[in-house]
C-alpha cells in the first residue's frame, strides 16, 4: 500500500545517488555481527532495570521518609539527566575515583564498555520504569486487598494470589515497550567503543566514506529487531488481557 510506494520512492532516490548496494552486502555480515551484543546489552539492561524499578516504585509508595527520599531522588535525577552523560559518567568518570579506593576495590571503579553500558541503561531505564511500576501497583485498588483479607487470606497469600498477578498484567506491556526502546538506546553504548551494531556500522562507514550505506543497513536491522519484539509483545499483551475485555474481538467496546 502506502509503504510499497515509500519503498519505491526510496529505491529511486538511492539509485539516483549511486547507492552502493554491493558495498552494503559486502559489509552486512560484519554489521550483523554486532546484533548479539546489542541484544545482550539490552537484555542485561532490562534485567537490571526491573529490580531497580521495583525498588524505586516501592520507595515512592513508602511511608518511610528515607526510602521515599532516596527513590524520589533516584527517579528525579536520572530522568533529569541525559543517558549519554550517564554512560560517560560510569565509563569515564568513575575510574577517576578509583585512586581514592583501597587497592582491591579499585577495579570496581574501572569498568569495561559493555559493563558500563549495561549499568547505565539499567539505571536509566529503572528510573523511568519505577513510575510505570508505581502506577501498576496503585492500579490495584485497596478493595482487592480488603476482599482477600475478609476471606481470611494472609498477607502473603493476598500479595501472591491477588495483587501481584494484577500488577504484572498491567506492567508487562509497558515493560516490553521499554525493552524495545532500550534496543535502540543501546546504540549510545557504541559511542564508548562497544562493538555493537551501531559502532560497527559507523566504523565501516567512516573508514570507506560510505556512511549513508552502513547507516541504512544499521537502521534496517534495528527496525527488523524492534518489529520482531513488537510482534511478540503484542501477542503477550493480548494473552494478558484475558478477563479484561468485555466482548470478543477488537471492536467489542
Amino acid at each position, binding site marked *: 500500500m502506502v509503504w510499497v510506494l515509500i519503498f519505491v520512492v526510496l529505491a529511486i532516490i538511492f539509485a539516483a545517488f549511486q547507492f552502493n548496494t554491493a558495498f552494503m552486502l559486502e559489509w552486512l555480515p560484519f554489521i550483523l555481527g554486532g546484533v548479539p551484543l546489542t541484544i545482550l546489552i539490552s537484555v542485561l539492561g532490562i534485567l537490571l532495570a526491573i529490580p531497580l524499578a521495583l525498588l524505586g516504585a516501592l520507595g515512592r509508595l513508602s511511608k518511610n521518609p528515607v526510602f521515599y527520599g532516596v527513590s524520589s531522588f533516584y527517579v528525579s535525577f536520572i530522568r533529569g539527566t541525559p543517558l549519554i552523560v550517564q554512560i560517560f559518567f560510569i565509563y569515564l568518570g568513575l575510574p577517576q575515583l578509583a585512586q581514592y579506593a583501597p587497592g582491591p576495590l579499585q577495579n570496581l571503579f574501572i569498568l569495561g564498555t559493555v559493563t558500563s553500558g549495561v549499568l547505565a541503561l539499567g539505571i536509566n531505564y529503572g528510573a523511568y520504569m519505577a513510575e510505570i511500576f508505581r502506577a501498576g501497583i496503585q492500579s490495584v*485498588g485497596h*478493595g*482487592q486487598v*480488603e*476482599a*482477600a*483479607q*475478609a*476471606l*481470611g*487470606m*494472609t498477607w502473603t*497469600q493476598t500479595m501472591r*494470589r*491477588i495483587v501481584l*498477578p*494484577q500488577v504484572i*498484567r498491567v506492567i508487562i506491556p509497558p515493560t516490553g515497550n521499554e525493552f524495545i526502546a532500550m534496543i535502540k538506546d543501546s546504540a549510545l553504548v557504541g559511542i564508548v567503543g562497544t562493538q555493537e551494531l551501531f559502532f560497527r556500522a559507523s566504523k565501516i562507514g567512516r573508514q570507506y566514506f560510505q556512511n549513508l550505506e552502513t547507516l541504512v543497513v544499521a537502521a534496517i536491522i534495528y527496525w527488523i529487531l524492534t518489529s520482531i519484539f513488537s510482534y511478540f509483545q503484542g501477542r503477550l499483551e493480548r494473552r494478558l488481557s*484475558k*478477563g*479484561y*475485555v*468485555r*466482548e470478543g474481538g477488537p471492536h467489542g467496546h
Partner: protein
Amino acid sequence: MGTDAHSIVSLSGVRKVFGENEVLKGVDLDIAEGEVVVIFGRSGSGKSTLLRCINFLEEPTAGSVEVDGVRYEAGPTSHARRKTIREIRSRTGMVFQEFNLFPHLSVIENVVEAPTTVKRMPRREAEELGMRFLEKVGVSDKRDEYPIRLSGGQKQRVAIARALTMRPRVMLFDEPTSALDPELIGEVLAVMKDLALEVGTTMVVVTHEMGFAREVADRMAFMYEGSLIEEGPTAELVGGAKDPRTRRFLEAVL
C-alpha cells in the same frame, strides 16, 4: 464469654479513632444466631466502620469483639492478635458496596480461591461447593466468565456466593446495593432475602434500603455520630422510635 449464650456476634465498648476523629464512641451490640440485623443511619455516622470492626478491616482502638466464641480484645498488634483476627475472619463473610471481585479470575476461580488457599480444600470439592452457591444466587451459567462481562447485579451475587463458599457463621453486608443501577437492586435484595428467610443465615446489613429492612430484618440499630443510640425489633423501631433523632431519620427515609 458473650453476654448472651446464644449470641454469635458480641461487640462491647468498641471505639475507633482515626487521628483526632472519634468515629465510634463505644458501641455495644449483640447478635443472635440466625438473626438479621440492619444497621442504619446517615453517612458518616460510623455504621460502615462498625461493620468493618467485626472482621477487622478496621481494627478497634478499644473494646472487644467476639464472633462464634473467638474473642478479640483491642490492644497493640501482636502475633496472637493477628491469629485471632484470622480466626474471626474465617468465621465471617463480607459483601462490599463495590463488589471487589478479583478481575483476573473467572467467576468459579473467584469462588474457589479462598477455600483452596486458606482452607486447603481440594480444588474439586471447592468447585462443587462453589457451584452449589452460584446456583443458589442464580449465576451458575456464568461460571467461566470474567467479572468484567457481568452486570453489577450479577457481580454482587457472585460476591455473595464467594463469601458463602467459605461457610461463614455470619454474613456482613456493607451497603450491598448502593453501587447498583436501580433496576438491578431487586435481584440482589431477593438473594439476600432468600438467605435470611429460607436458609436462616445470620446477617448484619448496613443499608439504606428501608423496604428491605422492614421486610427482612429482625432487629434494627440506629447509628448517630459514632454512637448506637437506639435498637430494637424492626416493627417496634419503625412503629415508634423513642429517640427523636431516630424518629426524624425514619420520617425522612420512609
